[in-house]
């Protein structure tokens, strides 16, 4: 299993639980073993006391060989071997690709001290260390990472500015209705939103001093966090001759197209969802479930179930917990079906309220899961 985060860990565990008794190796390139990523942009930044490393336990009874700090540089698919640049190699019968994604960065010339992306624990530690100096924070990109980092820094009492070329936060994922709600939420908490304007570059010699907007204005900054989304980590596969566009191409059972006994799971995998078609999800829950599904399909082949989850994710911003089940289509209207957005507690649907493409809960964690099957049914019906 290449990639020792949640998808890889779950895949390794599932192999064992399904009765596989051969050798299972979990290879990760980070110095630490598996840990939880979701808290890195949330509690890990906002908590004032030193937070504990959100490690994930690898059950010892599963007999998994965990190797940390092991970067795989390429694969020889013919001799079925993993290769590293230091001469290390390892043969395999079956391979789980779970290398996840890396943060998209501003171009290299913009990199200087005080500029961070947030993907790994090391990133989060660096950001936390700098937050103690109480910097003026500028977050580039109002996506999930951007919004969460902004909220966390604001809760720590720092001056925060969020810049995004779109007119509203998370507009592309959650539409204008929720986008407007989030914009109000952030403004209310004193986060400055600069929307509908791009970033031209960063200023400062060695340490960042400001962010230049495309219209020429300069925003002072001591720390810049890039929330520009992620790129699937497939460089090592491309080097091995496996071409991919936006993730590794898989069939409905997470098997990589054109290869035998190679599966992919998590952020890196783009598979044929029976109802949604070719999609790639960057959600925690998907990594958990797909890791397990990929392991089973590696063991059982066609006898395994096609992987058809209902997409689900959550996001914590200030005192608001957003949870979404399903995938809203572009232009789907948001309709409140319970509570109100103004009360900060509500439940609403995207698309036709009778057969919604997605359901969103605001501070309503108990209610949302009832809608999973309904969303799945609606999606299946719309495909039929």
């Amino acid at each position, binding site marked *: 299993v290449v990639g020792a985060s949640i998808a890889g860990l779950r895949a390794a565990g599932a192999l064992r639980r399904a009765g596989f008794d051969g050798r299972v190796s979990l290879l990760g390139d980070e110095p630490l073993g598996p840990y939880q990523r979701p808290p890195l942009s949330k509690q890990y930044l906002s908590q004032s006391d030193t937070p504990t490393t959100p490690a994930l336990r690898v059950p010892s009874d599963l007999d998994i060989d965990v190797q940390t700090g092991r970067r795989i540089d390429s694969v020889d698919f013919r001799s079925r071997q993993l290769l590293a640049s230091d001469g290390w190699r390892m043969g395999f019968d079956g391979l789980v690709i779970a290398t996840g994604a890396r943060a998209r960065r501003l171009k290299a010339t913009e990199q200087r001290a005080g500029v961070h992306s947030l993907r790994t624990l090391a990133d989060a530690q660096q950001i936390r260390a700098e937050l103690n100096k109480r910097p003026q924070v500028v977050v580039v990109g109002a996506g999930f990472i951007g919004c969460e980092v902004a909220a966390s820094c604001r809760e720590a009492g720092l001056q925060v500015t969020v810049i995004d070329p779109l007119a509203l936060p998370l507009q592309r994922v959650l539409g204008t209705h929720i986008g407007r709600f989030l914009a109000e939420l952030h403004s209310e908490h004193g986060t*400055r939103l*600069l929307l509908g304007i*791009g970033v031209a570059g960063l200023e400062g010699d060695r340490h960042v001093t*400001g962010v230049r*907007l*495309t*219209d020429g204005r300069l925003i*002072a900054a001591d720390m810049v966090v890039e929330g520009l989304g992620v790129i699937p980590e497939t460089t090592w596969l491309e080097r091995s001759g496996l071409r991919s566009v936006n993730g590794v191409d898989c069939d409905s059972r997470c098997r990589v197209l054109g290869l035998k006994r190679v599966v992919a799971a998590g952020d890196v995998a783009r598979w044929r969802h029976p109802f949604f078609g070719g999609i790639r999800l960057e959600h925690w829950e998907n990594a958990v479930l797909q890791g397990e599904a990929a392991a089973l399909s590696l063991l059982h082949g066609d006898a395994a179930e096609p992987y058809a989850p209902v997409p689900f994710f959550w996001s914590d911003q200030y005192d608001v917990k957003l949870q979404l089940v399903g995938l809203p289509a572009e232009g789907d209207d948001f309709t409140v079906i319970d509570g109100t957005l103004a009360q900060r507690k509500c439940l609403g649907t995207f698309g036709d309220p009778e057969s919604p493409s997605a359901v969103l809960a605001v501070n309503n964690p108990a209610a949302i899961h009832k809608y999973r099957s309904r969303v799945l049914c609606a999606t299946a019906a719309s495909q039929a």
Partner: protein
Amino acid sequence: VTTRMGATASLKKRRTAQSDALTAERHTSARRRGRRGWGTAVALLVVLMIGLTQAGNVTLLSVLTMALIYSIAVGSLDLVVGFTGLLSVGQAGLVGVGAYTVALLETKYALPMVLALLVAGLVSVLFGGVLGLSALRLKGHYFTLVTLAFGLAVPQLALNASSLTNGDTGVVVDAGTFFGLSTAYPLELFEAVFIVAAICFLFLERFLFSTLGRKAMAVRDDELAAKANGISIYSTRLSVFGVSSFLAGISGGLLAYFVGLVAPSSLPFDLSLFFLAALIAGGSGRYTLCFAGSVVGAVLLAVLKQATVSNGSLAEVIFGGAVIVAVVLSGRGIWSLVQILTAVPSQRGWLRRVRLGKLRTLATERDAR
């Protein structure tokens, strides 16, 4: 030209024409020649002094650099709006053409900065010429509407010609060198922009008092009278429009170096209107002021844009207020406030006269004197 013009001026325009004729006469006399552009020079020097003394303040330096870049665009607009009497609201489009020209020249051919700026000006003249050839055949509002369309079209064109312009992402501009001044460093960039701006305003001032500039003002004041004196209205306007485009292009080129990236969002749709508002607020078409009003207006624009960064529409509100004040002061702009306030105390019982109507009369009297 001006004396004859004064005689034939229509009743409605007589007062301005006469006062302009008077000032023109005063300024053409050889011994007064040195006084022409003093207002502009003072305004520019104040900006330079603040910039040089506050070089450590990155934000302030950035605002002043932006103000100088804007001032060239606003000055070029003043030439068209203030001195030729054509209401153009597409200046940001020409600025955009210049910015994209520099960006593309820099990335594809690594042209020296001076050359890139000149080419940017020339390409803008090309676009402005095509625009002018058609738009200048229209009168009044119709001309304004065509320039508005042009201003809106340029960012859209850039967005859609993505093979050339990278669409939404924009074109990255590397640092250039202007006679040893690298645009990578804020202070050197400021100095380079100042030099270019100073040259541009010197050029504008010379142009204004050239034959073509006088023709332009004659056309503005009374088309019929100008025509009767053998001035071709169309070709005068077209030439002025071309000169204005050239300067707008240079302003855009500087903007490209300053921002480091040229994208459609560098040219917000309201930028042209902001230029116009800056011009009105600062004072436009004032013979005695030359282009000082443009500089003041541009400084105001840059300061307001930076100051209201977290509250986008506040800039519009304040600017709206400034424009109203400027219009109430008989369209003379902020600069005239200085004039009026210095004029008032010399009058007896000036406290009773501090009513806007009186102020206006005072200003007119003063100008006539």
